[in-house]
C-alpha cells in the first residue's frame, strides 16, 4: 500500500545523509580555516566568507529539510492511513529541492548572496524554494485532509506548524527587489531589515531545527521502544508553547543594538518563557524513551535518542540564559554563540538524525542493522566530538567575550584585538578536532548503513503454513 511513500522516503533520507556529510565537511573546512588561514588558499570560491554560508545552507536546506520533508510526508501518510495526495508532485518536490539546492550553493560560491543568515540565497532561488515549500504544504495538508483517522496525530501538528511558520517567515524575510539575475536588495533597510531577519533567523532554528524533530521524535521514539508517548498533555504544552513563544524571541539577537529597547526586551522575556515548553517537551521525550528498560540497556539506538534529548535540554537552558542582558553582553558576537548553536545542531539535531537513520533505514529496506557494535563506536566518536566542540568554544568564546569587554583601572582596553585572537587559537583547533571526530562517526554510520542495505533480503514467507 505504501510502496511509493517508502520509495520517496528512501530518496529523501539518502539525500539528507549525503547533504549532511557534505555540509559537515564544509563546516570542518571552515573550522580549519579559522585556525590555519592558509587553507583559504587565497581562492575566490572557497575562502571562509563563502564556505561558512555553504556550510549552514547545506546543513539547513540539505540535511534538515530533506529529513523533515521526507519523514513528515511518510508519517502523515502512515498515521492518516492513506496514500499521499499526489505521487507526481511528491517526486517533483524531491528533485526540485535537490536541484534548487545545488544551484543555490553554486550561486553562493560565485558571490550571489543576500548576506542575511540562513537566507543567503538570492531571489531566483528564493522563488524556487517558496514554490517547492507550497508544494510540500499542499501534499502534507492535502493528505491530512483525507485521513481515515479522526484525530490529527501529534507528530503532524509539529510538521504542520513547521510548514506554516517557515513558509510565512521565509517569504517575508526574503522580500527583495531584483537588481539583476541572482542579485537583489531587501525591501527593508537597517534596523527594519535586522528585525525581519532575526524574526526569520531565530525561527529557522525554532522550527526547522526544533519543532520538526520534536514531531518526528513523537513518531519514532514510541515505535523504537515499543511504548506509548508518556504524556499527550505535555505534547500539547510543547506545541502551543513553541508556536506561541518562539516567534517572539528573535530580538534577543539584537540586544544592545540600535533597535528600540522595548523590542529588545520582548525578546528577552519571551526567550526565558521558552524554557518552559522546551523542557516540557524534553521531559516528555525522555520519559517515553526510558519507559522500556530492556531496550534502554541493550539498544545503542535508544542511547542516541536519549542523548539528543539531553542536548536539547542543555541547549534550551543555555539559550534563555544567553538572552539575558548580562550574559548577552559577553556572549554576543563571540564564538560562544557558535558553540551554543552546535550543542543544538550536533547534539540535538545530529543525534536525532543519527538515531532515526539507524532505526528507520533498516525498517525501510526490511533488513536487520548490519552492526550494533559499530553503532557503539559511532556513539563514542559522536559524543567525544561534540564535547570537544562545545567545551572548546565555551572556554574560547566566553574568554573572547570577557577579554573584549575588559578595561584596566585607568579605563583603557586591557586586550588588543590581536591578544584575543592569540588567546583563541588553541580553542579553534579544539573545535576543529571535535568536528572531525563527529564526521568520522558519520562515516562509520554511512558504512554501517550501506552494509545494512546490501545485506541479502530477509526471507519472508507469507502464508507458508
Amino acid at each position, binding site marked *: 500500500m505504501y510502496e511509493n511513500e517508502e520509495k520517496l522516503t528512501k530518496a529523501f533520507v539518502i539525500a539528507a545523509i549525503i547533504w549532511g556529510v557534505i555540509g559537515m565537511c564544509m563546516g570542518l573546512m571552515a573550522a580549519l580555516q*579559522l*585556525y590555519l*588561514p592558509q587553507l*583559504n588558499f*587565497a581562492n575566490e570560491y572557497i*575562502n571562509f*566568507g563563502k564556505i*561558512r*554560508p555553504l556550510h549552514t545552507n547545506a546543513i539547513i536546506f540539505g540535511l534538515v529539510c530533506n529529513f523533515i520533508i521526507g519523514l513528515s510526508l511518510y508519517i502523515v501518510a502512515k498515521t492518516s492511513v492513506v496514500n499521499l495526495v499526489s505521487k507526481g508532485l511528491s517526486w517533483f518536490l524531491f528533485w526540485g529541492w535537490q536541484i534548487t539546492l545545488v544551484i543555490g550553493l553554486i550561486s553562493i560560491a560565485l*558571490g*550571489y*548572496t543576500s*548576506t542575511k*543568515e540562513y537566507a543567503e540565497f538570492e531571489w531566483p532561488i528564493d522563488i524556487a524554494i517558496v514554490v517547492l515549500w507550497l508544494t510540500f504544504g499542499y501534499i502534507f*495538508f492535502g493528505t491530512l*485532509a483525507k485521513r481515515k483517522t*479522526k*484525530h*490529527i496525530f501529534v507528530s503532524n*501538528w509539529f510538521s504542520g*506548524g513547521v510548514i*506554516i*511558520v517557515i513558509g510565512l517567515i521565509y517569504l*517575508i524575510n526574503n522580500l527583495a*527587489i531584483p537588481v539583476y539575475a541572482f*542579485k537583489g*536588495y*531587501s525591501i*527593508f*533597510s*537597517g*534596523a*527594519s*531589515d*535586522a*528585525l525581519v*531577519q532575526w*524574526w526569520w533567523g531565530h525561527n529557522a532554528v525554532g522550527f526547522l531545527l526544533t519543532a520538526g524533530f520534536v514531531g518526528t521524535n513523537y513518531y519514532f521514539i514510541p515505535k523504537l521502544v515499543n511504548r506509548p508517548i508518556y504524556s499527550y498533555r505535555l505534547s*500539547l504544552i510543547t506545541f502551543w508553547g513553541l*508556536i506561541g513563544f518562539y*516567534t517572539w524571541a528573535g*530580538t534577543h*539577537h539584537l540586544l*544592545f*543594538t*540600535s*533597535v528600540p529597547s522595548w*523590542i529588545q526586551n*520582548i525578546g528577552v522575556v519571551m526567550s526565558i518563557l521558552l524554557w518552559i515548553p522546551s523542557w516540557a517537551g524534553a521531559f516528555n521525550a525522555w520519559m517515553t524513551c526510558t519507559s522500556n528498560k530492556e531496550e534502554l540497556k541493550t539498544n545503542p539506538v535508544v542511547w542516541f535518542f536519549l542523548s539528543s534529548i539531553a542536548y536539547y535540554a542543555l541547549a534550551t537552558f543555555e539559550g534563555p540564559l544567553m538572552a539575558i542582558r548580562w550574559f548577552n553582553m559577553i556572549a554576543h*558576537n*563571540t564564538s560562544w*554563540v*557558535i558553540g551554543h548553536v552546535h550543542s543544538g545542531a550536533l547534539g540535538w539535531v545530529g543525534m536525532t538524525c543519527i538515531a532515526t537513520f539507524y532505526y528507520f533505514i533498516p525498517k525501510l529496506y526490511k533488513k536487520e542493522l548490519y552492526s550494533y557494535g559499530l553503532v557503539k563506536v559511532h556513539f563514542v566518536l559522536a559524543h567525544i566530538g561534540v564535547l570537544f566542540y562545545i567545551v572548546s568554544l565555551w572556554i574560547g568564546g566566553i574568554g573572547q567575550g570577557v577579554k*573584549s*569587554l575588559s*578595561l584596566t583601572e585607568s*579605563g583603557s*582596553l586591557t586586550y588588543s*584585538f*590581536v591578544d584575543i585572537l592569540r588567546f583563541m587559537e588553541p580553542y579553534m583547533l579544539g573545535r576543529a578536532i571535535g568536528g572531525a571526530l563527529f564526521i568520522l562517526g558519520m562515516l562509520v554510520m554511512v558504512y554501517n548503513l550501506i552494509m545494512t542495505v546490501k545485506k541479502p533480503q530477509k526471507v519472508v514467507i507469507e502464508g507458508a503454513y
Partner: protein
Amino acid sequence: MEESISKSVMAFITITTVVVLFSFFVWVFPGFFFTNDLKEITTAKPYTALELAGRDVYMAEGCVACHTQMVRNLEPERKRYGRPNKMEDDVYEFNFLWSSQRTGPDLTNIGLKYTEGWHKQHLINPQAIVPASIMPQYPWLFEKKLNVSHVIASMKAMKKLGVPYTDTQIENSSSKVEGKTKGDALVAYLMSLGVDTREKGGDLN
C-alpha cells in the same frame, strides 16, 4: 478548541497562522514604518557609485561572516570601535550588514582609522601587516574589473527603494567606475564607513 483543532485541518492551519502572526504585528511590522522618520534625522549620505559597488563586493565576498557593523553602546565597545550605531545611521542600508560574529574587528567606523593604501595592502595580504591575522587573502579583487552595467542597475534599484540618488548621479556613475577593480571599490566603501556619521569625540583610538 482542542477538540476541533485536532480534528479539522482548516482550524489547525487558521489558528496556527494567527498565533504566529501575532508576533509579526507586534514587533516586526512596526519596523516597516521607521524609515521615513529616520530619513529626516539621519546624517548618513547615500554611497557614491564606487562605494556602492564596493558594498556589493563586501556582500558578495561574505565579509559579514566575520565582521560586524554594529557598535553596541557599551564603554569598552565605544573605546575599541568608536561611535555606537544609531537607528538612523543605517536607513539607506538595504540589506543591513550588522552581522553576528566578530571573528574580525567591527567595521562601523573603519573609514576613520586607516588609509586607502593600508586597506589595499591588507586586503591583498593581511598577514603581511598583522602576522596573527586569520583573514583570507583577497589578491584577485584587484585583478577583476567592475561590471559597469551592474553598478548602474544597483543605483537604480537603490533609488527605487528610496535612496535619494538623482538621475544625473546615476548617468554619471559609469564614468566613475569604468576601469576600476573590485578591490578599488571595496577600499572606497571601507574608507566611507563611519565618515558621514562622525561626531566630535567619536573617533577611534
